């Protein structure tokens, strides 16, 4: 594995008496794609939220680029270079594609000292980014409420590809995509990883995990139940880790 980008060290999260995460430790390298697998309620989304600044861990620590790291808000995580695509889409359907693409990072120019949105510059950037990714959206000035589920997800994916950062977290990013768009999405992930960006992708679909990931991390009941290189394991072995037929921490099987 290349130089670690993010290291999680015994991260836990309790909701009252419930231990959602009982101590998660693993690491993500630069340019590495890690697929995070696990059954419903295993704690995957909780973990992503902790890295992305949406939740604070109960205990444990994280190292980002070798330095102690804790994001208290999504803004802090973003400032550190962590981009997140959530399971439930994070789009404002009441504004247009351009506004969504630049949400919180608008290009402005000063008019009499007041920051004013530079719509033309933003539209140019968005149309270039979407064209590069091969996404076709009829008008960038359409409010997102008029777009299909696939188009919306494409906007989210293009957004993270464009902004990049250092680490990208994807929580079931392909749930609403068709076959062709999913293939393109997986290509995008590889393309992003090739730029040296670390990627964590949560998915339920074994095939996707094996198509795109370098490493597969399985979480079961709040602990890491398996952490194996993709080429040293098989879908069957991973399924066993998810359902718990293999002992926690067991390495390559099958």
């Amino acid at each position: 594995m290349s130089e670690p980008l993010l290291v999680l060290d015994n991260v836990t999260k309790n909701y009252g008496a419930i231990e959602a995460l009982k101590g998660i430790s693993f690491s993500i390298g630069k340019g590495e794609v890690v697929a995070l697998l696990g059954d419903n309620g295993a704690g995957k989304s909780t973990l992503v939220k902790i890295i992305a600044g949406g939740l604070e861990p109960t205990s444990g620590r994280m190292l980002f680029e070798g330095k102690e790291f804790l994001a208290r808000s999504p803004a802090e995580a973003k400032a550190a270079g962590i981009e997140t695509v959530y399971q439930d889409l994070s789009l404002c359907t009441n504004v247009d594609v351009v506004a969504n693409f630049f949400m919180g990072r608008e290009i402005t120019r000063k008019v009499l000292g007041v920051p004013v949105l530079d719509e033309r510059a933003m539209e140019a950037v968005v149309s270039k980014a979407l064209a590069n990714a091969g996404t076709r959206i009829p008008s960038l000035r359409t409010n997102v409420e008029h777009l299909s589920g696939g188009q919306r997800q494409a906007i989210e994916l293009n957004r993270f590809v464009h902004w990049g950062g250092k680490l990208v977290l994807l929580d079931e990013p392909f749930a609403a995509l068709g076959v062709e768009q999913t293939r393109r999405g997986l290509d995008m992930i590889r393309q992003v990883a090739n730029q040296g960006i670390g990627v964590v992708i949560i998915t339920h679909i074994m095939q996707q995990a094996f198509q795109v990931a370098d490493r597969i991390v399985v979480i079961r009941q709040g602990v890491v139940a398996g952490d194996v290189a993709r080429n040293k394991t098989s879908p069957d072995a991973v399924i066993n880790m998810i359902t718990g037929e293999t002992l926690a921490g067991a390495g390559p099987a099958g």
Partner: protein
Amino acid sequence: MNPSTRHVLEFILDNLVWFMLVFVLVVFSLFIPSYFQLGIFANIIEASSVLGVMSIGLALVIIAGHMDLSVESVAALSAMSVGILFCSSGIGLGIQLHPEWLMVPVSLLLALAVGGLIGAFNGFLVVKVKMSAFIITLASYIWVRGLVLVISGGRSAQDLAPAIRWFGIQRLIGLPLTAWIAIACFVVFSLIMAKTPFGRHLVMIGGNETATFRAGIRVNRNLIIAFVLAGAIAGLAGWLLAIRTSGASANLGAGFLFNAFAAVVIGGVSLKGGVGTLPGVYAGVLLLSAINTAINLMGLPANFTLVIHGLLVLAAVLLDAFKQTIRQKLA
């Protein structure tokens, strides 16, 4: 549905209030004798300045997905504060500043500060303590009005200092300066909402607060600013109200809240947040004012006004729901 039909329909929905305004003005001009005069139209604009300014603040908060019921009482408190200090009869203390023009910025700052403080209080409770804006601002609506009664003892202040009243008397192209102040507010805040990141963020927060938070927008900060602005703008409305009535009485501005509410909703701002523009709100205010003027000209007893306003609010909310249904069909 083909795209061009959809565009036309959306354009009509987005600007419905302007069509209604033109329609109402044409109908009144045709059927009410002496309605079609420049003086009447100037009067419509003039009469809508206080309501218009108040509606701006209310609209900002509603667009951001919240609610501010306190604007009317805040305006009354600001007006009463200005009245007590700068009126010379009634409960007015008749404070004189030299030079006289100094009373203008001092009274204006006082009104803005009173409003801004109550807005900050509302915003803090809504955003930090995470209580419902409806309940918090309903409470403010009541206690702030109570405060007006307490500081005035139920009495009124008359004869506002001439230096301040000058804004209500001096005319520019047929309109008093107070009306120009309202128009300027609409222009400035329309530009802020449409052209600056702050305005864009408020609209997006109203649309999907979670998404904006995840995108790193400082949602809490923006919302508190929106509440402070709503309060300060209501304070400005109170200042204009004090000028217009040349003083302040304990029940000053009573009923404005519902008119402002009606104007905002008629103006195309959705109560669900995230939808609406300030030029539309201005059209809504003018529409209400045009109807009021018609009631006056037709010589209907003033008692009917409340009934008509109530029905208008109802119509506006129904219209909002109806528009959402159409939009869903368009989507």
